[in-house]
């Protein structure tokens, strides 16, 4: 054939692949409220920047029932494109082709996309909408015994390049481990779900009748299990969330996070912070108001906002520089730390430290929860994760004690011993092994019982106790750097960040620590 004919043939092949699973399958995808894999890739990347690899791929020709049929792009779109000008690699499952099932050719395409991401040091993004392994091509140990490479690689890439796995449809069985090993997992409400065993398997093995949504929908994973990071309304919101999330991170762990232009004055005084902490130490307030008052333009990107709400973990910027904020939330469980809160914070601290994102700690913590329920659930080992993560982190760390800094809560929220580059307190701060009421009851139990008026004696002792824990005691001993007007918090943090910019801490050599899990 002449080149002209060959080129026409090429164009026809491309056009067939771009039609995905055909008109009916695409119509079904849209009717389900989902965009197609190709539309998703276009929206994920800056316009016109996507370069596709593997468009001519089709199934491996080993399943008899696939003979004579094509599987366009083998049900997976792969390639690279730019997000805010920076390259990222994508693997988008195409549900219109055999329900996005992972065939052997698709697996090779995925391997290639991951290799590009790792060796060229750019983020890896999965857009998951898949029935799982393509059983026709995976059945028999000759096929299965060689697989699983993906999860090992994902583990090795962890902390080297950012990894995002967006749930935009089903992701059952092995596919569910892709998000489990990723850094950030948004889930689309209503259309996405993930479970190690889907409903039919659950029914067959444990006899439970349950829908995919009840088993592993976005509510389950964003509010109960903590396996996902953000519930989003639809595909567009999901793709926008991925772009925003990545804007806080460098392309790889060897780079600094990108700096944005900042028009919010660095010395802006936040007047609302003067009245935010209630006069009574027993009353709650919303710490998110403090975060918004302090960071650039009041803008923060919360990670796991619906889970372990007694601690807030959010990405934000200070003078254009990305930071990770860890803040106790007095409004939920009084801000006390429990197993889930410790897990949430520990993971967030590791995430920020891995990618050179400085940490800001806002302390108002009455301590770790106590009682038989949390002890049986292993709060000691969960709390240890947070101690471990904050100890290991070598990024700049800035601590502000807003109010309570009680017990081990003070430690895990980057107290003095945990290498904060700046540690300051608001005048309302109380840094203490325990709260005045609890402390008085233990230390002065006998004196209170013996007093003519025990209630008055207790109140007097509590007041005496309070005098020992006000911030000027710690500041007077030079154990904190300053007591600050709450309105100055933004300026203090911006200057602290500038001061700590070239921070370098070398740890003794080890293969790796024995991480509490």
């Amino acid at each position, binding site marked *: 054939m002449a080149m002209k004919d060959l080129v026409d043939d090429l164009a026809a092949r491309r056009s067939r692949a771009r039609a995905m699973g055909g008109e009916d399958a695409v119509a079904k995808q849209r009717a389900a409220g989902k965009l197609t894999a190709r539309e998703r890739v276009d929206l994920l990347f800056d316009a016109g920047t996507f370069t596709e690899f593997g468009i001519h791929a089709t199934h491996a020709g080993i399943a008899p029932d696939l003979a004579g049929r094509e599987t366009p792009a083998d049900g997976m779109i792969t390639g690279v494109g730019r997000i805010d000008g920076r390259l990222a690699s994508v693997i988008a499952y195409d549900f219109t082709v055999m329900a996005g099932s992972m065939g052997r050719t698709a697996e090779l395409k995925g391997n290639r996309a991951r290799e590009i991401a790792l060796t060229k040091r750019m983020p890896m993004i999965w857009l998951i909408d898949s029935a799982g392994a393509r059983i026709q091509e995976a059945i028999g140990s000759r096929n299965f015994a060689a697989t699983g490479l993906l999860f090992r690689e994902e583990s090795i890439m962890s902390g080297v390049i950012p990894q995002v796995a967006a749930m935009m449809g089903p992701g059952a069985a092995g596919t569910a481990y892709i998000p489990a090993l990723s850094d950030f997992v948004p889930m689309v409400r209503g259309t996405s779900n993930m479970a190690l065993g889907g409903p039919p398997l659950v029914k067959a093995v444990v006899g439970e009748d349950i829908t995919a949504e009840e088993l592993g929908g976005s509510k389950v994973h964003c509010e109960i299990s903590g396996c996902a990071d953000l519930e989003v309304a639809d595909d567009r919101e999901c793709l926008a969330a991925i772009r925003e999330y990545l804007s806080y991170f460098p392309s790889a762990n060897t780079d600094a996070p990108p700096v944005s232009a900042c028009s919010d004055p660095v010395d802006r005084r936040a007047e609302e912070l003067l009245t935010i902490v209630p006069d009574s130490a*027993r009353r709650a307030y919303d710490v998110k108001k403090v975060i918004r008052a302090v960071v650039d333009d009041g803008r923060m990107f919360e990670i796991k906002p619906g889970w372990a709400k007694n601690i807030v973990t959010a990405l934000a910027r200070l003078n254009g520089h990305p930071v990770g904020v860890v803040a106790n939330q007095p409004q939920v469980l*009084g801000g006390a730390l429990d197993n889930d809160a410790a897990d949430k914070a520990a993971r967030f601290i590791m995430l920020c430290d891995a990618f050179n994102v400085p940490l800001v700690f806002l302390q108002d913590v*009455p301590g770790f*929860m106590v*009682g038989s329920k949390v002890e049986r659930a292993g709060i000691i080992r969960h709390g240890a994760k947070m101690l471990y993560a904050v100890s290991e982190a070598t990024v700049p760390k800035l601590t502000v004690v807003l109010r309570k800094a009680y017990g081990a809560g003070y430690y895990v929220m980057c107290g003095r011993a945990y290498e904060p580059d700046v540690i300051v307190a608001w005048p309302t701060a109380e840094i203490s092994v325990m709260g005045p009421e609890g402390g008085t009851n233990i230390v002065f139990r006998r004196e209170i019982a013996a007093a003519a008026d025990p209630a008055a004696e207790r109140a007097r002792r509590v007041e005496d106790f309070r005098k020992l824990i006000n911030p000027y005691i710690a500041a007077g001993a030079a154990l904190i750097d300053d007591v600050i007007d709450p309105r100055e918090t933004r300026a203090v943090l911006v200057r602290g960040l500038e001061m700590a910019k070239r921070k370098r801490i070398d740890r003794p050599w080890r293969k790796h620590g024995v991480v509490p899990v």
Partner: protein
Amino acid sequence: MAEEIKAHITGVVFQITTKPGDAVAAGDPVIVLESMKMEIPVEAPRAGTVKEIRVAEGQTVQEGDTVAVID
């Protein structure tokens, strides 16, 4: 449809802020517990009318105990 409101933390009932017949919005405190030396509200999960308060001030409740019912 009646819905039970359960304590999400073990504590002592500090204050009962609603009574049967009161209309509440989602997120309104129905009672306030004291735990970890903090006043922690137990909130209505959705809008409705308080049908029943099942606890008294000063009473200890365990996490998961029903403290009130809304309609």
